[in-house]
């Protein structure tokens, strides 16, 4: 039986892991995820002015895809790097990204299926959508850590959540609240009040992208640790797939 660390244990460990590998993890996230956020933010800035133009719609689709590609690649790379660190292997940036690019399409497929199911669930009276969203919280981790593909990844994620749904929901909600509050603390002075008048929009976007990137690494670390803990405590889940 694996010892469960509780929320504070996971929290401290994720913080420790991030602290000790801060430079490495930050450089990974800033290579792609950060730019995805920036592209998306800049697009939002122009969106109201550009949308009525036909070509702008094409640009909207293209930019949305680019942004999605960059953010997904960043998340996959971070999960790969964290997984390696868990195994005490510190591979260089290039090899992390090579692996991430290889995994991009399988992960994208998983995310698309996941998104469609969540959308369908939301259309069918909202609640199923929320349930699916919670079930598939770990879909990316199953794809990266246990090399699951398509439906398998989703099923594994669902099984992992189903082991202790209360714990997963509680921990993730708490982590969500903490990271959101932290991001607000940094971002609020820019968002409202006197300061917003002095900060040009692009600067605000860059700052927002930076803060979001750093917090994403931390939340991803926490989620991975939670996922690993549940898997280690219940190794039979893997056998059932």
């Amino acid at each position, binding site marked *: 039986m694996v010892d469960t660390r509780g929320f504070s244990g996971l929290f401290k460990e994720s913080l420790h892991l991030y602290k000790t590998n801060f430079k490495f993890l930050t450089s990974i996230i800033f290579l792609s995820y950060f730019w995805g956020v920036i592209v998306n933010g800049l697009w939002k800035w122009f969106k109201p*002015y550009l949308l009525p133009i036909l070509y702008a*719609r094409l640009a909207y689709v293209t930019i949305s895809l680019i942004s999605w590609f960059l953010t997904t690649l960043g998340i996959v790379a971070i999960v790969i790097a964290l997984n390696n660190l868990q195994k005490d292997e510190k591979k260089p940036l290039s090899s992390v990204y090579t692996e991430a690019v290889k995994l991009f399409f399988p992960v994208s497929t998983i995310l698309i299926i996941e998104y469609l199911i969540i959308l369908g669930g939301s259309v069918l009276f909202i609640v199923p959508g929320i349930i699916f969203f919670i079930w598939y919280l770990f879909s990316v981790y199953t794809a990266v850590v246990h090399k699951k593909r398509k439906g398998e990844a*989703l*099923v594994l994620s669902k099984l992992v959540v189903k082991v202790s749904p209360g714990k997963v929901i509680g921990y993730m909600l708490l982590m969500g609240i903490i990271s959101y509050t932290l991001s607000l603390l940094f971002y609020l002075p820019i968002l409202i009040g006197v300061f917003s008048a002095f900060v040009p929009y692009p600067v605000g976007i860059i700052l927002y992208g930076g803060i979001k990137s750093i917090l994403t690494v931390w939340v991803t670390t926490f989620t991975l640790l939670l996922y690993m803990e549940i898997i280690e405590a219940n190794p039979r889940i893997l056998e059932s*797939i």
Partner: protein
Amino acid sequence: MKKLSKFEIIAGIVGLVVFPIVGYLLIYSPEKYSPFPIIAPSRTAGMELKKEISYIKARGDPLNLKDLASPPIPKEENAAFLYQKASDKVGKLPGEIEELLSERPSNLTLKEKIALDSFIKENEESFFLIEKAITYNRCQLPVNYEMSSYFKLSYFSDPPYVEWLRTSVRLLALKVLWELEKHNAEEAVNIAFQIKKVGDSLSNQPVFIVQFIRLSIYSVMLSSLEKILLEGDLSPVTLKRLIDVLASCQQDIKEMLKLIILGKRCIFIEAVQNPRNFLIEERGLKMGKMSYFIYSRFIKGDALYGLRIYKKMISLTELPLYEAIKESEKLEEEVRNDYRKEINKLFSKSAKISEWHFISHMLLPDIFGTFKIFAEYEAKLQEVRIVAALKLYRIKYGVYPDTLDDILLKILSPLPKDPFTGKNFIYKKEGDRFLLYSVGANLKDDGGEPEIFVNGVWKRGKDDIVWGKWDN
């Protein structure tokens, strides 16, 4: 091996169906479904604008300021330069002489008489030049048809050629006074008709500013004739001639009105074609690149909107003035309401902005008052004709008629109507005196009280257009 449950698969299929629909709604119809304020100008405006422009071309109407320019007249046949010479020779009119023109008719003092007499004699050469110019019958003013200079001149300051004509016409008006002082009313009428000829010589100039100059020249003629009729005794032949000559002036009104609106439409088309230049150079407003980028997508809709209003205004020139005034007031109200709506939309965050007639709302208000200006002019013109007819009636029958209908059959037919109402002018007789007036723009009978100009402000309320009060 475990697979996705049936419910998950169903949800996935539903998602697959819903996704393209949501995508379509958000991307292709953002003006309806997007939560952001969306600017979505009309997509058909471009096509409609092309049709409108081709319609204007097919009618042979001018499209821009250069189209307005009439074929050049040789310098030897152009009266404009003689007016320039005459005006330059006189220079600025002395203050005491200028006062004679601004006052209502009253007996001149001895000092004034001497000053007027010496002024007329000093400037004989100028009078000679003006008389020579009048024989040319054609006057082409050196109007600059470049958009910026044309605009600056017509809105911010008078072009120099306005001064040439103003001085020349004022000289003639002074000569009318001079002849009246010499009890030579018949000659004074001839000089007043010379003023009319100065205005007539501008008839081939299809530029709206020139047409306004022409209108003011005719107004000077009318006020001169008013003085003559009030102070001088005219023979029946001259009175008859006066009635007939002024009848032709009436026909010019429609021509002038149409030319003015056509000219203003050309200005509008130029402004719409180059809005940034128009705003920066002509109105001193700077439009940022981003604002211009946004506004440029409304420009076709704006042009179309303005052209439709101008088209309606041009069609109104065919109507009698009192109907045209009513219709133009309705149009003005419509444009004002549109302006209010658009402003409200621009300042409310959630609105979907689909129309923004920025330049139309800057330029259109200029034209709505045009009919009233012309109605005032026509009222004065018809009053002069009626008074001439009344004087003729008195010569024939010894008294003024009891009603205006009395002169209808015997002297003046058809009887001129009040351009503001389409009905008879108001005529009141008391002994050997009469009161004649038009009700004016407010359409109310204010008992013959005109608008008063006090301390540089027109006091609104009463606005009857009155012939010299209680003429006898």
